[in-house]
């Protein structure tokens, strides 16, 4: 946010805020222990508002649930912004002192009346108004989101439309007020922080910023390539163009996790050389020329991961890796050695200390301090610094320290695939409590909650289609078709259906999802495909 790639707040603040606005997130199931902190806040008198097409198990705890149509988030967010301005509830002092671009934002949201947003989103105007007033008048308010916001063709605009609301009310940079993406993997935050992004060096430092890059050139004694690379979606596009011909995949299963699976597998098969480093012989690994068996990072090796509150924490080896599996670090060091660079013996703490030398925000996080303090939240500038509970307090200094935060007007664009007579139902996807992603990890344990893949559908649609619980139907999109049993779910409104992608060997959900992607972030529109449902035996 505003130059720092991480959520602004701490879990503790979730307990002590007045309002939690959970937008496009079913944290009760996907981030269960985060939701414990939300529940603590509710028991202390805080309120919860959820915005989600489904009446999820999180929404069941909410004081107010806005069941919007998939992909209408910006319409609702802009109407909330307009209502806050129109009702005189915007934080004029904060806007004047700490932000830029307000007038352009005001002009952009002016047409977004409550009635217009109701027509776009299906959410009653009165509910949107209630959200606007609740958020703007709460002394402290937290805005949290997950993939319901980011797995769309306009992911970046979705996020910016929410950040605009925080700027409008001054709900950022203060204790109990912040904006937070809840991270989906145990180190997706840390991976980005370490530079595993196409435009970033370790410490989230921009690779095209010459003075920053020069420090890495000096530290490493090499010339770091000065231009950004491709993100995942860009890599597949480059494969399609024949520009990318070799791929080294560490701990990902794109053959099953990417949208439009037929295309993904065709492109992976077309590579000249594919190396996969993983715990398992995944579907992606089956396509590889070389498979490097890896140790499990969280229990068979040492290192750090970073969570959704920017807390860097130690992972430690508890058990030895099986067979010939080796630590990721060991494998990378060995590849380097064979390429002619002898980095010595792999030592996780030494690698971390090197990171601390090149990333100022991690400089004070020695292993000893991480141990002593139970993890540290970045930034942590030196050996005395305790880490920061929340980010951007500088926006409340007068005058503001550093650049102001900019409003970014966003325009509502419906999902790429409109519903029509041929594909009249909306399919959205997500996780369930006891499963995880493509099931590579979660498929192994005996799980009493496990039910296999289903097409979850509203009772109204089921009745209209004449299908009942458990009946196997054919679900088709413009890209493919799968056969899957029906599950009636009254959390779904008519017209909306839901599937997971946890059981790709049984039901390859990503055969039917759409690979339309956001031009800025490259995220795929997993949340909005148009489908039809046909009975197999009329």
């Amino acid at each position, binding site marked *: 946010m505003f130059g720092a790639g991480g959520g602004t707040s701490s879990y*503790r603040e979730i307990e002590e805020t007045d309002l939690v606005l959970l937008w496009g997130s079913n944290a009760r199931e996907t981030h269960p222990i985060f939701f414990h902190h939300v529940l603590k806040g509710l028991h202390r008198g805080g309120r919860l508002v959820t915005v989600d097409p489904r009446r999820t198990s999180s929404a069941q705890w909410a004081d107010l649930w806005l069941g919007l149509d998939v992909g209408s988030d910006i319409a609702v967010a802009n109407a909330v912004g307009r209502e806050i301005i129109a009702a005189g509830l915007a934080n004029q002092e904060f806007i004047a002192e700490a932000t830029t671009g307000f007038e352009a934002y005001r002009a952009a949201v002016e047409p977004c009346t409550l009635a217009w947003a109701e027509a776009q989103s299906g959410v009653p105007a009165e509910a949107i108004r209630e959200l606007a007033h609740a958020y703007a008048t709460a002394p402290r308010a937290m805005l949290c989101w997950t993939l319901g916001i980011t797995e769309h063709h306009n992911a970046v605009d979705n996020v910016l439309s929410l950040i605009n609301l925080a700027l409008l009310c001054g709900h950022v940079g203060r204790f109990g007020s912040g904006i937070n993406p809840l991270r989906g993997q145990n180190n997706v935050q840390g991976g980005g922080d370490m530079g595993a992004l196409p435009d970033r060096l370790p410490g989230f430092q921009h690779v095209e910023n010459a003075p920053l890059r020069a420090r890495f050139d000096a530290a490493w004694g090499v010339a770091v390539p000065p231009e950004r690379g491709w993100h995942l979606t860009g890599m597949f596009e480059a494969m399609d163009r024949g520009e990318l011909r070799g791929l080294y995949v560490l701990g990902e299963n794109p053959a099953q996790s990417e949208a439009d699976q037929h295309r993904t597998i065709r492109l992976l098969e077309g590579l000249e050389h594919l190396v996969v480093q993983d715990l398992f012989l995944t579907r992606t690994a089956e396509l590889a020329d070389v498979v490097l068996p890896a140790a499990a990072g969280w229990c068979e090796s040492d290192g750090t991961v970073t969570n959704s509150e920017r807390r860097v924490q130690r992972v430690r080896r508890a058990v030895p890796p099986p067979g010939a599996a080796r630590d990721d670090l060991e494998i990378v060091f060995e590849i380097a050695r064979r390429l002619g660079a002898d980095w010595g013996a792999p030592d996780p703490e030494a690698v971390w200390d090197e990171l601390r030398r090149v990333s100022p925000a991690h400089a004070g996080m020695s292993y000893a301090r991480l141990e002593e303090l139970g993890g540290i939240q970045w930034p942590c500038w030196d050996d005395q610094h305790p880490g920061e509970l929340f980010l951007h307090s500088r926006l409340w200094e007068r005058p503001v320290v550093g650049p102001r935060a900019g409003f970014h007007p966003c325009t509502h664009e419906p999902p790429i695939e409109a519903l029509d007579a041929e594909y009249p139902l909306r399919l959205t996807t997500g996780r369930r409590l006891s499963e995880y992603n493509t099931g590579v990890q979660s498929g192994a344990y005996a799980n009493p909650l496990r039910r296999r893949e289903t097409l979850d559908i509203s009772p109204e649609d089921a009745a209209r289609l004449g299908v009942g619980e458990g009946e196997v139907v054919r679900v088709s999109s413009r890209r493919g078709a799968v056969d899957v049993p029906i599950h009636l779910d009254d959390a779904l409104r008519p017209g909306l259906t839901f599937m997971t992608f946890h059981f790709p060997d049984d039901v390859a959900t990503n055969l039917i999802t759409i690979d339309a992607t956001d031009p800025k972030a490259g995220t795929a529109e997993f949340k909005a495909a148009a489908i039809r449902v046909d009975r197999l035996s009329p």
Partner: protein
Amino acid sequence: MSADHDDGADRVWFEPPPRSVRLPMAPPTPAPATITLEIDGREVQVADGSSLLDACASIGVETPTLCFLKTLTPVNACRVCVVELEGSRTLVPSCARKAEAGMKVHTDSPRVRLSRKLVLELLGSSVDLSQAPDVARWMARYDAHPERFGADAATVAQPVKDDNDLYVRDYARCILCYKCVEACGTDAQNTFAIAVAGRGFDARVATEADVPLPASACVYCGNCIGVCPTNALVFKSEHVMRGKGTWAPERQTTTDTICSYCGVGCTLTLHAQDGRIVKVTSPLDASVTEGNLCIKGRFGFDFVDDEPAGDG
């Protein structure tokens, strides 16, 4: 969006964010007043709001507890922590009673010793406490002899409830401390799958309508296992290994690490025996978890092993 606005946004992402000029902090809360009381003739100073249990611990007086846990709301169920408070007709539970200025407390008086002894004897005569850590030591300290109630004393002995793949409920070990009910309820999980059913000696922890766990509201977070003081609630892997005689705590290591699933960052304590994970807990003082986990964090570790724990 104007062109110069775009440039501004890019610049923000291009440069490292400015440092805070002062440390972001929670609003200050007034420090609680210090109060003075007397415990066993010693003057003790504690922060206002402390319990008598805290006050005892602050001067190194060890108090037995069974139903108390620092992350749960005291329910005053077991009464093994009682102390004598001058001016109070009855003994008071130290876990729940707040310290007040001028209190005079006795933790080892004859009344306290007799009461703790009797509580331990009543529990010991009716419940299997063999896997409750510390209880044997407390029995010795208070000269408790549960056997004096005779071999025909009523017990809660009953078959183990083994109705799912993740954990078993051995209610022959249940002292009705309510911790599991609290952890399943508002103190942590808020799932409300269990409650105490029945009255008097027949009271027991049960699911709704006493249905088997798979038919109940249980989401298998195992946070009840995490708080159980007597091993009445136990990992299936531990139960199976104990049955086979292969459960060997002396060969086990514990290692703290971070869960491999979502991005919340829960601390897991991995209990490993002979190079395999056999149980997962979380430290009560981990700020992220306060000891609580979800089904994946607590049970979803089999993927690192060839064969499920418990077969070993």
